[in-house]
């Protein structure tokens, strides 16, 4: 049986590899708080969203979560569930943002929305599945502040990335 490999498949594979590289790089950084991560892999998701559309971005984000969990050895662990729920939440919000905003948003806006949705989705699932205690929400403002800062920075990086990509 043979699969036909399209140009888009190859593009998704390359971009996913890039996202994975960033993900693994980020694992090397110490984290002061659980959940406190820059989320560099989302730079690739946002850049792909702007350059190639939502479907490509969704493929990259979900493949990155899957392959990243295999690399980190967390497949099907609670951490994987959180990672996946964050990715799904941010993809949903990005899909909504793309269809509603009609190019009014730039990478910065998308990245910001994605980061906040990612964090919100994760905390929601963490509350429902793992820590059903309202004390968890005490962390929400701090983590959301971090998401805002990292979302902005990632958006700025994604913007310079798309400018290079689209110039080619």
């Amino acid at each position, binding site marked *: 049986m043979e699969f036909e490999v399209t140009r888009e498949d190859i593009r998704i594979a390359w971009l996913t590899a890039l996202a994975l590289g960033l993900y693994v790089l980020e694992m090397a950084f110490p984290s002061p708080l659980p959940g406190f991560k820059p989320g560099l892999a989302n730079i690739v998701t946002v850049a792909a969203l702007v350059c190639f559309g939502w479907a490509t971005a969704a493929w990259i984000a979900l493949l990155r979560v899957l392959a990243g969990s295999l690399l980190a050895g967390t497949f099907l662990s609670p951490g994987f569930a959180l990672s996946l729920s964050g990715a799904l939440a941010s993809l949903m919000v990005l899909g909504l943002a793309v269809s509603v905003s009609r190019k*009014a948003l730039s990478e910065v806006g998308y990245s*910001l929305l994605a980061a906040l949705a990612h964090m919100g989705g994760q905390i929601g699932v963490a509350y429902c*599945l793992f*820590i*059903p205690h309202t004390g968890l*929400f005490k962390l929400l403002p701090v983590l959301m502040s971090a998401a*805002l800062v990292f979302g*902005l920075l990632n958006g700025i990086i994604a913007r310079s990335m798309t400018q290079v990509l689209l110039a080619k």
Partner: protein
Amino acid sequence: MTTADKVILVLALALIAALYAHFWAPAPMAESARVSSAGKPDLWLALGADRAVVIEGVLGPTDLEIRDGRIRFRRAPCLAKLCIHSGWLASDGDFAACLPNGVAVQVVGKGMGFDAINF
């Protein structure tokens, strides 16, 4: 940054400010405390009125004090006095126990669930 980006940023800042205001507000005062004593049915104490309560534990009488919507162990016949050192129990879910004496106090607000689930 486009105008829409700025709108998103302002909305995000407002959301975060609202989160701080909502989740970091002082916890509401607890309404009652559940006192368990070995071999006896649970005793529910309202925290509205200041008073002292004496509970008969395994080792002997144990004094609880209720003041300003809080409760604490004031005197207990145990050795380590860990229950007394736990201090005031004020917010929903706070817990202290005098194990040798078989007496436990938990402050209860609206809902009770698990503290955490670990894997």
